[in-house]
């Protein structure tokens, strides 16, 4: 009976080992990366082209750092914009100061990013067509009302053409994310005007950064204009010294009292016990003396 049990146990162990060994020797599948190309035109008119490379594990994106991404513009004859390694977030970014000389078609400029792949990671590519637009933001006080006026236009055949009926957003920069304060469609002149709220907390001088933005627009990508104005409520962020902090000069009184009582109680007993030990020794000496006498 016992032998049968051992044989069964050995069989289980052997079967388990074989399965584990098979699993261990299986070649891992190459990673299938997912690429995305993000376009941002900033206040100075510079273009930030960012390619993100991620691998989806359990439907969660895991960045792929250290991979070389090549950026191009154009359709048939590609213009190289640069080659950049992805950072720890899996992002590779090129900054273009000027795009006037890039080949443009009826749908705008074609931007193209490519990762060539290797033995472990498959190749990936992504393209976007972006129409170049300009976004202007005018901040002015009109009869004590803080007014934000936006104007968007594109240059077609050397002429300014207003961008009409497109959705545009206005934000204020905050610590964790932008605070939306306005959204509307541009009118036929490519313009939008809104009144700025009065109650937005700013820095100690009342400065806030106002952002006008086409937000990942299907034609223009992300185009933004940022300006700092003293339109916020001046806010002092230095809080009054908190009572319970590790850097206060002295501990709370209750803590000092409790600790003193505890330590005095314990150590006084220790002292009593140590004195008792001396008493034992003294008694021994006394007894020795008595025996001698």
């Amino acid at each position, binding site marked *: 009976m016992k032998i049968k049990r051992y044989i069964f146990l050995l069989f289980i162990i052997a079967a388990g080992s074989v399965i584990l060994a098979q699993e261990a020797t299986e070649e891992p599948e190459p990673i299938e990366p997912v690429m995305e190309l993000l376009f941002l035109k900033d206040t100075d008119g510079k273009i930030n082209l960012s390619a993100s490379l991620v691998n989806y594990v359990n439907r969660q994106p895991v960045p792929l750092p250290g991979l070389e991404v090549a950026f191009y513009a154009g359709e048939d004859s590609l213009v190289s914009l640069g080659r950049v390694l992805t950072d720890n977030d899996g992002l590779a970014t090129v900054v273009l100061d000027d795009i006037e000389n890039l080949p443009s078609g009826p749908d705008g400029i074609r931007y193209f990013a490519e990762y060539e792949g290797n033995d472990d990671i498959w190749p990936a590519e992504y393209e976007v067509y972006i129409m170049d637009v300009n976004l202007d933001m005018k901040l002015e006080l009109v009869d004590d009302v803080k007014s934000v006026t936006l104007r968007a236009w594109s240059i077609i055949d050397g002429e300014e053409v207003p961008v009409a009926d497109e959705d545009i957003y206005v934000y204020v920069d905050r610590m964790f994310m932008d605070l939306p304060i306005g959204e509307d469609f541009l009118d036929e002149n490519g313009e939008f005007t809104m009144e700025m709220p009065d109650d937005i907390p700013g820095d100690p001088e009342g400065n806030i950064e106002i952002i006008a933005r086409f937000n990942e627009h299907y034609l223009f990508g992300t185009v933004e204009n940022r300006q700092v104005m003293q339109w916020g409520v001046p806010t002092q962020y230095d809080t009054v010294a908190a009572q319970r902090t590790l850097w206060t000069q002295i501990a709370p009184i209750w803590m000092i009292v409790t600790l003193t009582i*505890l330590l005095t109680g314990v150590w006084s007993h220790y002292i009593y016990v140590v004195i008792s030990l001396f008493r*034992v020794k003294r008694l021994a000496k006394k007894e020795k003396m008595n025996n001698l006498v």
Partner: protein
Amino acid sequence: MNNTELQNSLLNKFKPVLETTSTRWYVTFAVLIVVFGWGIFGLIKQITGGHIVTGMRDNVVWGVYIVNFIFFMGLSYAGALVSGVLHLFNSEWRKPIIRMAELITVISLIIGPFYILFCIGRLDRLHFLFIHPRIQSPISWDVIGIVTDLFGCFLYLYLSFIEDFALLRDQKEIKLPNWRVKIYKWLALGYTGTPHQKKIIHSARTIMSAMIIAIAIIVYSVLAWIFGVTLQPGWDSTIFGPYFVIAAIFSGSGLMIILMYIFRRLYKLEEYITEKHFINMGVLLLVVAAFYGYFTFCDYLTKWYGSVKINSQLIDKLFAEFNFMFFFANYIGIILPIVIVGIRRFRTINNITMASVIAVIALWVNRYIIVIPTLETPFLPIQDSREAWVNYTATWVEWSLMAAGVAIFIIMFKLASKFLPIISISEMTNEDHRTLKILE
């Protein structure tokens, strides 16, 4: 001092151990020294190479060292609690095993704080803890607590040894080297067993047992508060103090049973450490396991039910990446001792010892899953960090120093049991008619 019959019988029992040293003793000692030496080699690597040789990084700044610190301190406080309570309530069955509890207390308390030193990056600033203590900091409470506890435990241990020192000083049966007799003589403080001396020692021991129970509870609670007062997920809990104390008693009683088993076998003490002792300690283990399981359930239930995002992330992590450890520490480690001791059929010495081994290992794992997953679950997403910085894996240096800690624990126990009988002879002979009942 006049020896009783039982006293002489015990002295004879321990005569070979105290008088001679076997080859097996030397071999195991040498093996332990090699393990300890390997740990020292790892420590030298760490000191010369810096903490980069460990798995600790910016995000997970505490690793196996802190786990070992909590674990050893827990064993120490449990030893103190068990021996203190048994002495204070004058439990007759305690007598053959109380010395083991006392030794666990002191030896663990010596080893535990070393792991803090291994963890500290700037040891050159260690003295700042003493010259610039900040009363508001739980770290300062811990330093004060450990120093107070260490002194108290040494005093308590010494008090329980005095009568045995005197006994060994006066006995003529065992041939001991002169230097050892001199040490016994010096440590015995001239104790001759007069009623007055006995009364003083008894009163001092009673005071110290009450003291070390209180200190053990306070100091281990302080250790728990180092975690509990922070706002970290998994740590910020009001029950961490009592939870840690119960967990400590759980591991301590487990270790007691393991040591009882080892010394019983090693020194052939079957007539002194009987099945009754194992069952009594097993029942203690069962009761504490039930409480420990209850606290664990309460802690995780409230965290899970609250659905605070960061707590949910932590619990998800525990059930995913740490699922085996979580299952082992919080299911097997609790249920198995309860089943083995709870069902009469399974309640044998071997089974109780096996349950204790599992309980002790499970408790260590429990400490691991308290420390590491929390540090791997920060409030803000970790940016621009390498994978190895976010997820902790202990290196060979850390494992070596852990093995060295276990080795030195055994070495100290071996040396202590060579120097003094592992059963308190004086305890066994004081109240002869009641003590003899143990042998019946």
